């Protein structure tokens, strides 16, 4: 076993008795201790509770439990409420917030015997594409410490890429799992909206937020996803289904893909990019695996980024109203009145990007602007969904780049908000349509990892994972490590 062993490999090692979960967890904690200072992936490291959970897992294994996930270390994005643990969402506003309850994702992972070693860094309230909007400082990309890991799940992506953990949870509102996965050279799955419970996941934009796994390969993504997913009566938008293949996947891994697929290439995603040679290689590899590639059109793609920023900001502006300094979180010193308490607590507690989106969202929901912005954006959102439905009458999955650029330098885009928002160009349409998509490493640009995105119809995660696993069985992009010569 080494720091780049997969969850499945560790699971086999635990099963054989090569090492205990306590030893495995301690090895993770040591590695984090050694590497985190340079990367800043973690906001909180929970050594004591992790070792206690690991000891409990060892105990259960000794008593005959065979669960493949029992005793596997991983990390949670610091957006999931974790009982008794600091839960910050990357914000000064919650820099003192110890959650009094567990998110459903947290309790699902714990019930499967998985061991959380800590909480990973992120853009404040998941708003950002570079992890530079964190109150706890930026995260470095393990491939080049001068560069960003992407965002908002930048801490999770960097931790997995650097071998601090084999898997971490992420959340994706407009690309926050997929874009950092691509920029860090790992695998990230954004599930269908409603597949994973949002209960206890600090809300950014409720109609878009979705949690998913970030791992080094599709097999581990499938394992973590199967544990995270499931109907939750505490989340009214959670889908009332538990597909049989999820449990089969935990037990036996991803079922082999048994047929050639028709893969659609949306022309709008390939029109404006100079460095797409890595995608051309991926296309060739997919064809060699027997799949058919056809061009399709998603005509409303251009509108997706503005529509996304109108809707996500509108929802965020009211989701973040509860941070008022009254009951929890940051509170200004010596408030003079209720108004003063609100104004200074929020002024001091929120970072600039969060304030920008609250203001944008407040504006688009205001009387006189609601129809022109919010309602119109909702209508276009429907058209974007219909584009995908139309395309899926002809193809099984879609293939597209995950991000327009490789990892960029820190501070490079911080003053150019529009350029920063364009990072989401290829990821927001699927978010708006609520569809599942997986990003997996497929090549390099200037020595930096690049990702491709596979998109499926709603609840088609199995097909995505099967295709990704097949691809990763024939290629080694996902096995490249920072420090290797590219």
């Amino acid at each position, binding site marked *: 076993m080494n720091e780049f062993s997969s969850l499945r490999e560790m699971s086999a090692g635990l099963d054989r008795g090569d090492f205990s979960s306590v030893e495995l967890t301690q090895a993770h904690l040591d590695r984090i201790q050694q590497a985190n200072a340079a990367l800043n992936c973690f906001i909180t490291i929970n050594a004591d509770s992790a070792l206690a959970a690991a000891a409990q897992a060892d105990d259960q294994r000794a008593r005959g439990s065979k669960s493949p996930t029992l005793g596997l270390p991983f990390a949670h994005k610091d957006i*999931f*409420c974790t009982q008794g643990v600091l*839960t910050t*969402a990357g914000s000064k506003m*919650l820099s003192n*917030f110890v*959650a*009094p*309850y567990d*998110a459903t994702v947290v309790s699902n992972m714990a019930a499967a015997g998985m061991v959380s070693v800590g909480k990973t860094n992120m853009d404040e309230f998941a708003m950002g594409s570079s992890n530079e909007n964190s109150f706890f400082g930026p995260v470095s990309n393990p491939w080049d410490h001068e560069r960003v890991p992407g965002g908002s799940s930048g801490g999770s992506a960097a931790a997995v890429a650097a071998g601090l953990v084999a898997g971490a949870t992420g959340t994706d509102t407009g690309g926050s799992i997929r874009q950092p996965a691509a920029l860090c050279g790992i695998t990230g799955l954004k599930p269908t909206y409603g597949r994973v419970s*949002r*209960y*206890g*996941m*600090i*809300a950014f*934009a*409720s*109609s878009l937020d979705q949690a998913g796994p970030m791992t080094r390969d599709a097999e581990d993504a499938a394992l973590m996803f199967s544990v995270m997913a499931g109907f939750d*009566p*505490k*989340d*009214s*938008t959670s889908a009332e289904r538990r597909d049989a293949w999820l449990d089969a996947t935990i037990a036996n891994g991803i079922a082999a893909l048994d047929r050639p697929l028709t893969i659609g290439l949306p022309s709008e995603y390939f029109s404006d990019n100079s460095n797409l040679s890595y995608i051309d290689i991926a296309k060739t590899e997919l064809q060699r695996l027997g799949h058919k590639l056809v061009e399709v059109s998603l005509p409303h793609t251009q509108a997706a980024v503005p529509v996304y920023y109108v809707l996500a900001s*509108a*929802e965020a*502006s*009211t989701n973040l*109203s*509860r*941070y*008022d300094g*009254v*009951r*929890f979180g940051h509170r200004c010193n010596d408030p003079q009145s*209720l108004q003063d308490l*609100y104004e200074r607590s929020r002024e001091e507690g929120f970072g600039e990007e969060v304030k920008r989106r609250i203001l944008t969202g*407040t504006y688009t*929901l*205001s*009387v006189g602007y*609601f129809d022109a912005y*919010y309602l119109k954006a909702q209508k276009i959102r429907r058209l974007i969904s219909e584009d995908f439905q139309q395309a899926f009458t002809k193809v099984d999955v879609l293939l597209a780049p995950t991000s327009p650029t490789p990892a960029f330098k820190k501070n490079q885009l911080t003053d150019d908000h529009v350029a920063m928002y364009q990072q989401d160009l290829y990821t927001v349409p699927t978010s708006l349509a609520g569809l599942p998509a997986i990003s997996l490493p497929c090549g390099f640009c200037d020595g930096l990892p690049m990702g491709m995105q596979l998109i499926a119809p709603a609840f088609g995660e199995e097909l995505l994972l099967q295709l990704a696993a097949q691809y990763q069985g024939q290629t080694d992009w996902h096995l490249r490590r920072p420090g290797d010569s590219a």
Partner: protein
Amino acid sequence: MNWEAVIGLEIHVQLATKSKIFSGASTAYGASPNAQACNIDLGLPGVLPVLNEKAVEMAVRFGLAIGAQINRYSIFDRKNYFYADLPKGYQISQFETPVVGEGTITITPENGKPRRVGITRAHLEEDAGKSVHDLYPGMTAVDLNRTGTPLLEIVSEPDMRTAQEASAYFRQIHTLVRYIGICDGNLAEGSMRCDANVSVRPTGQSEFGERTEIKNINSFRFVEQAIEYEVARQIDVLESGGRIERETRLYDPDKDETRSMRSKELSNDYRYFPDPDLLPLSISEELIERIRSDLPELPDARQERYTSTLGLTDSDATAISNDIDRANYFDACLAAGADPKQSANWMMGELSAYLNKHDVTLSETPIAPELLAQLIARIDDDTLSSKTAKTLFDALWTAGASGNVDALIESLNLAQLSDDGALTQIIDDLIAANPKQFDELRGGKDKMLGFFVGQVMKATQGKANPQQVNQIIRDKL
């Protein structure tokens, strides 16, 4: 100039669910501050609302009771504003699509004729918490126990023209919501509160005048007083050449006046939009039919049945039908075989007096309707006289649930003496003992009949059947 008032009410009815509208916390009244505010009520990061279906069923129940359209598809919106007792910074309500559409209700103002009042809509929403300003000097205390309590906001048409009509409407809604079991109707605990929209216009003018809204009135009397004050105030302003400002006012019952709270210029833009945490509310035809079949007979229908079919007076029928407990008690008496008019007389007479005297409600009465029905049956079969029936009633009240009508008649020796032979014997003895008086009676002095009946009553300790005694004496003549 003659003026006419135009009044519409928005009534907030607290629904009698066990748990809150979007969380599992209890709605019971009177817990220590913040003891009934769970993570969801506190608006903690990450929590989500889940709709309480019982609240929806109660809203539908109300809609069916006022003959309203039930919207098969409705949406929960966020109403955004900041306040210390509003934990999320928004209230979940229904803005564009309420669950209940247009309906009507009939009101009967005191000294007025019954009339119909239109109901524009009724929608579900969550209550806010409570800010307490006078508990700690210089500070405001916040109690979030009430946060998330389900409310049905019932909005009337501007159909009322007097403060008395507005008060009658408020009472009628109060009667109805208790009737259909969706609210405990406890005004003192805030279970019903209302806002009154008031304007005035010259009599005969069809356009409405500018209106003001009086907030948070919590008694029938205050509704009437607040509107009366406000109508007079508006007329004063207009007659002295002034203009009515659209504004929110508060009624101060101590001073009996309304005061300006905030003007429209300062009013919030609530930025309503559909709450993305909740799916649109979809109500099936089956649910509507199930609730319809489960509705009790409503006050109007009972009133009609009591007067036309059973022949009660209007005032008895109204008094009984307007209160679900009374109406159910009355119907239970009938079901036990009692005569309707006698049941009404006993309920409105003796029973009502005893309830008042002992300060208990009808639901706590020791005399079950079946017992009252048996008592009435013993009057009908001449076992009891009206006098001994009252004695029995008193005994039943004391005996409570263990009371047995026939056993008490026996043990208290209350049965009327209706034995012809025995009565004839007594009368014969009396005639023999009072020949002079009997001669006078025979001579046509009818007053003497009373003398003989009185003597018989005396001899029988009041138990002789008076009609029978009369008859026997007349036969002797």
